[in-house]
């Protein structure tokens, strides 16, 4: 594949303009879903076509890109997307969170705090948080417009009634800038507090659903809860088996056929940093 065969960053310039207009609108109305004309990408829906289009629209030659999937830099999806941008945008790439200017992610927010100037691009499967209870898009749009969000608490109520606590563990709904209820994509609720007042720009792209939304830097993001059942993040009884971190989101890894298991950091970059720090 030669770089003349495609425009810089794959999409043509008019498409990127369209995307940037949607992104600007999304930034101007935090948490509000902006429709956009999603393009066919060279991979199936559900593999991150929305996040990829957003990255295509914002990436430039001076950017450094990091791609993670479930926190890991080395999974197939992350590696493929990183390669894609290396080839088509001549982008520098990195695995180090602090070195990246753009981080495209599926299902996690990096453990290392983000900084001003960084952009976090989320891949979103279903952007509409109200859909589970109200399937009509006409109605959900109206509910957003009128801030009729009582039903969101119904979901949490059902959790408590059934399990005794709020069992929703990922895609935990948030209220952005005290107005729109937003689906933060299927990140664990462990990551929800990181969205609040983040210095980084957070962009969300849903390719199949053709929606873009955003949280501008330093925006208030609160997780829904009840007075007597406040929002809580997950915690683990043991530290990461590799780096010993006690403050990161852990994945359970099954080691053999006899049920031996370990808990290790889901964020591979963070885990590596901790290991290096332990060595010093």
């Amino acid at each position: 594949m030669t770089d003349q065969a495609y425009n810089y960053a794959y999409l043509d310039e008019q498409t990127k303009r369209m995307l940037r207009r949607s992104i600007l609108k999304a930034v101007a109305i935090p948490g509000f879903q902006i429709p956009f004309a999603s393009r066919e990408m060279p991979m199936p829906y559900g593999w991150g076509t929305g996040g990829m289009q957003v990255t295509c629209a914002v990436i430039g030659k001076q950017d450094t890109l990091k791609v993670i999937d479930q926190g890991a830099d080395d999974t197939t999806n992350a590696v493929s997307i990183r390669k894609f941008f290396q080839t088509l945008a001549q982008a520098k790439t990195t695995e180090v969170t602090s070195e990246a200017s753009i981080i495209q992610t599926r299902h996690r927010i990096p453990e290392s705090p983000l900084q001003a100037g960084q952009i976090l691009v989320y891949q979103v499967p279903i952007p509409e948080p109200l859909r589970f209870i109200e399937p009509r898009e006409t109605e959900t749009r109206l509910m957003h417009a009128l801030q009729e969000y009582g039903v969101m608490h119904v979901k949490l109520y059902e959790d408590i009634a059934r399990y005794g606590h709020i069992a929703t563990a990922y895609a935990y709904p948030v209220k952005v800038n005290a107005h729109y209820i937003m689906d933060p994509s299927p990140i664990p609720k462990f990551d929800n507090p990181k969205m609040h007042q983040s210095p980084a720009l957070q962009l969300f792209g849903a390719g199949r659903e053709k929606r873009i939304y955003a949280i501008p830097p330093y925006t208030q993001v609160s997780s829904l809860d009840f007075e007597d059942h406040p929002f809580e993040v997950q915690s683990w009884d043991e530290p990461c088996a590799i780096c010993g971190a006690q403050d990161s989101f852990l994945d359970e890894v099954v080691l053999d056929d006899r049920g031996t298991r370990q808990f290790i950091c889901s964020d591979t970059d963070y885990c590596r940093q901790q290991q290096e720090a332990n060595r010093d």
Partner: protein
Amino acid sequence: MTDQALLQVKQISKLYQPNKGCQNISFDLYPGEVLGIVGESGSGKSTLLRVISGREQPDVGEVLYRDRNQQVHSLFQVSESKRRHLLRSELGVVHQHPLDGLRPRVSAGGNIGERLMAVGSRHYGDIRARASQWLADVEIDIDRIDDTPLTYSGGMQQRLQIARNLVTEPSLIFMDEPTGGLDVSVQAKLLDLMRRLVQELNLAVIIVTHDLGVARLLADRLVVMKNSEIVETGLTDQVLDDPQHAYTQLLVSSVLQQ
């Protein structure tokens, strides 16, 4: 007796085609009053109910509602936001088919609690306690609080729908054939419940029904509709025992004597 009307319906018309829908409808409803709208299928009863409950814009006319703070709102001039807020707090709608007014896959407790959460309740314990209280009030076993309406019988679903509407202590409930499609014995239980609730809560009700027995039992006052217009109004027993209009006479004489 309060001297100020809760709901004023002024010259409402909503026609889908000539004489289909409702036209030239005016009446006042006072707090605690139960108004029955009777007439045959297609006479415009349900259209009228949709309009006066703020769910369908009339071609002409005005519906004024006096809220708890004695403020009068014109239902089709206030913002959509305000109208919908009134509909889930001070007003309520009981649909003929209970599943039209319930969330089928949400538990009974969640169905009742939704209206509370919609008006700002954020305390799980309180919401659950009030949902339980209302289940008891509509004679549903408390053990069923976490079951979804899909697992309920038709009569229970209808009672659940009523509980869901009443939990925010509305001033006015609109009911569209609430006993239609239920067994006679289940109907009796529901009617009895509705009568009791209306009395205890000083609730105003506008009930659309084609069953004159239901109308006689529940309504203080009747509106008789035919071909989209009101042909007769009056005290329920007066309209049924001394009907003036030919159509009302026909309606009354068509009922099997019990």
